[in-house]
């Protein structure tokens, strides 16, 4: 068995333990800077991950753990997200009353969970990795316990998380009860025998519901806006990016490695899930005035767009999911970074705090505008190309299944609606009448660097998508051919 395969995860966990220990000896101002130490550590691990690129596909730990290009993609994705989130957390440190080094350590442990989830090839691994992520986020969301909203968000996340964990574990029990297998490859080997077995189907369906909680898709999406609104900004950002990506990694593996036959038979169910999720997220976002709630509903809508790639049932769709997540990472992190900096300056998360932002800080205004434009899917930014790839993948499938045209129509309608509410925010930035304050907003240098990084990421993926598109297509092709 090749233990070096999990060395990245081990390094992340050790870094987290190191932070917890370092907390004992450091003075409070030095503790805040531990976040930079963690970010640099993760950057080193990110660089180290490229030494694994050559290994085609390796299984370890009685085939529970798989390291293939798909897993590597999701691992690098989560590492990148965690680096930006750690930098955000340093900027957020003033508002966390106690335990800032524990906050960093918990982010690292959640990251370890996401990296294990990226490699899960067994239902036991799936459950354990998902619980590690979810339990960590119970704590992260309610971290500002002096704030009622934070506690409320934490409790809501806890209750719905526990409910969906119950569905997930029930589904796993039903699958194990009918097939006697937990490993994805072994389930795949026997799944064709059980395609008419209702109990087995119910098991798969319950697992799907459990995973929908993680990706914030219908029917387990209801927590999203409240939790985003209540939780500390870095936690909400990590929830929006890392946790959703981990959910999609698991969803892809379950649907297409373990039960591909059933997934193909469920094309209408997947299309319906995507349609409901897109409509719910976009329509409910229209009346919102709170920035974090808007991003919460937008997160639901984006889960719906990503489900397009699942419903397309082809390699192009799966590769498009990976690409779309890449663009989504930069856009969402940039939006949360701007919210963080603006909120450090003035209390309140209402759209009105953005009034006159273009005069107070042109950089913040430009980055937030680009992030929202990318999320809305307007060229030339990354979001447009991601949506384009997803819709094209669905249209490829439309010859076999006319319902795909409905899906594409709903997706386009969703894009139009989303342009409306994103532009409500952009209007507040540039065309507010009589902004109350016009003092410049100070942008700390490191946060500014993170902002520029996200902006460049969006522009790069939008203008030169070839490299990432090829990477994702190779990863998916390799995974499908295994």
């Amino acid at each position, binding site marked *: 068995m090749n233990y070096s395969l999990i060395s990245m995860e081990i390094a992340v966990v050790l870094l987290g333990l190191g932070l917890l220990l370092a907390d004992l000896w450091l003075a409070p101002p030095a503790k805040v800077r531990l976040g930079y130490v963690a970010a640099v550590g993760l950057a080193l691990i990110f660089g180290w991950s490229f030494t694994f690129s050559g290994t085609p596909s390796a299984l370890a730990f009685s085939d529970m753990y798989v390291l293939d290009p798909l897993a590597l993609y999701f691992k690098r994705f989560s590492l990148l997200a965690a680096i930006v989130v750690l930098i955000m957390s340093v900027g957020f440190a003033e508002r966390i009353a106690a335990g800032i080094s524990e906050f960093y350590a918990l982010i690292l442990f959640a990251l370890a969970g996401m990296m294990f989830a990226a490699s899960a090839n067994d239902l036991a691994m799936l459950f354990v*990795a998902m619980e590690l992520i979810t339990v960590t986020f119970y704590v992260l969301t309610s971290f500002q316990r002096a704030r009622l909203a934070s506690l409320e968000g934490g409790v809501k996340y806890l209750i719905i998380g526990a409910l969906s964990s119950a569905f997930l574990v029930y589904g796993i029990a039903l699958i194990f009860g009918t097939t006697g297998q937990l490993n994805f490859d072994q389930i795949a080997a026997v799944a064709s025998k059980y395609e008419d077995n209702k109990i087995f189907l119910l098991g798969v369906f319950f697992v799907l519901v459990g995973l929908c909680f993680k990706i914030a898709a219908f029917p387990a999406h209801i927590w999203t806006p409240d939790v985003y609104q209540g939780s500390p900004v870095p936690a909400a950002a990590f929830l929006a990016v890392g946790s959703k990506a981990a959910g999609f990694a698991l969803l892809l593996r379950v649907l297409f490695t373990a039960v591909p036959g059933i997934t193909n038979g469920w094309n209408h169910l997947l299309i319906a899930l995507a349609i409901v999720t897109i409509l719910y997220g976009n329509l409910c976002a229209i009346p919102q005035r709170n920035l974090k709630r808007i991003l919460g509903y937008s997160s639901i809508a984006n889960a719906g767009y990503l489900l397009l790639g699942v419903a397309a049932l082809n390699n192009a769709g799966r590769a498009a999911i990976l690409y779309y997540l890449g663009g989504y990472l930069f856009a969402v992190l940039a939006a949360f970074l701007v919210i963080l900096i603006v909120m450090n300056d003035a209390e309140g998360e209402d759209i009105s705090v953005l009034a006159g932002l273009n005069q107070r800080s042109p950089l913040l205004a430009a980055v937030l505008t680009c992030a929202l434009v990318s999320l809305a899917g307007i060229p030339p930014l990354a979001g447009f190309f991601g949506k384009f790839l997803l819709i094209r993948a669905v249209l490829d499938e439309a010859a076999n299944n006319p319902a795909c045209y409905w899906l594409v129509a709903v997706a386009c309608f969703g894009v139009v609606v989303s342009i409306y509410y994103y532009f409500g925010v952009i209007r507040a930035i540039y065309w507010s009448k009589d902004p109350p304050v016009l003092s410049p907003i100070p942008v700390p240098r490191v946060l500014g660097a993170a902002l520029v990084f996200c902006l460049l990421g969006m522009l790069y993926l939008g203008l030169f998508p070839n490299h990432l598109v090829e990477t994702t297509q190779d990863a998916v092709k390799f995974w499908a051919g295994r």
Partner: protein
Amino acid sequence: MQDYLFYLFALLTLGCGSMIVLSRNPINSAMFLVLAIASMAGLFVLLHAFFLAAVQVLVYAGAVMVLFLFVIMLLDLKVEQRRRMNTLGIIMGFVSVGTIIAVMLHGVVATPVTPVLEVARHDGATEPLGQLLFSHYVLPFEILSVLLLVAMVGVILLSKKELK
């Protein structure tokens, strides 16, 4: 005999489970939870999972429940007892539970009885269980240790009295 015992324990589990939700006094709910857990331990015994049954009684019915009762003792019970049930909530709850039960029943009825799967049975002894945990399932087992650490850190952070 085994069948009768199964139905007895299953009915007990279901009945106590519903009473946990339905009774308005938190202490009563907690006590019904103890009963539900104990009858589930009975189900485990019928499956020859003796170790699991013992752990269920020792850890859940014993240790965890004592903690539950302490927490209930420290909270104000009167509010919960006086709280009116929301009619819409009750209706929605029954509808969703009913739907899930209907779907499950439909699934069970529609599924032909399949021969029992041949899985390795160890009759609940601790030795094979330990060997499985430390060989086949070693990776999830070790990840759980990180999960427990997270839970511990989280509980201390969220309950520590002073925000310094």
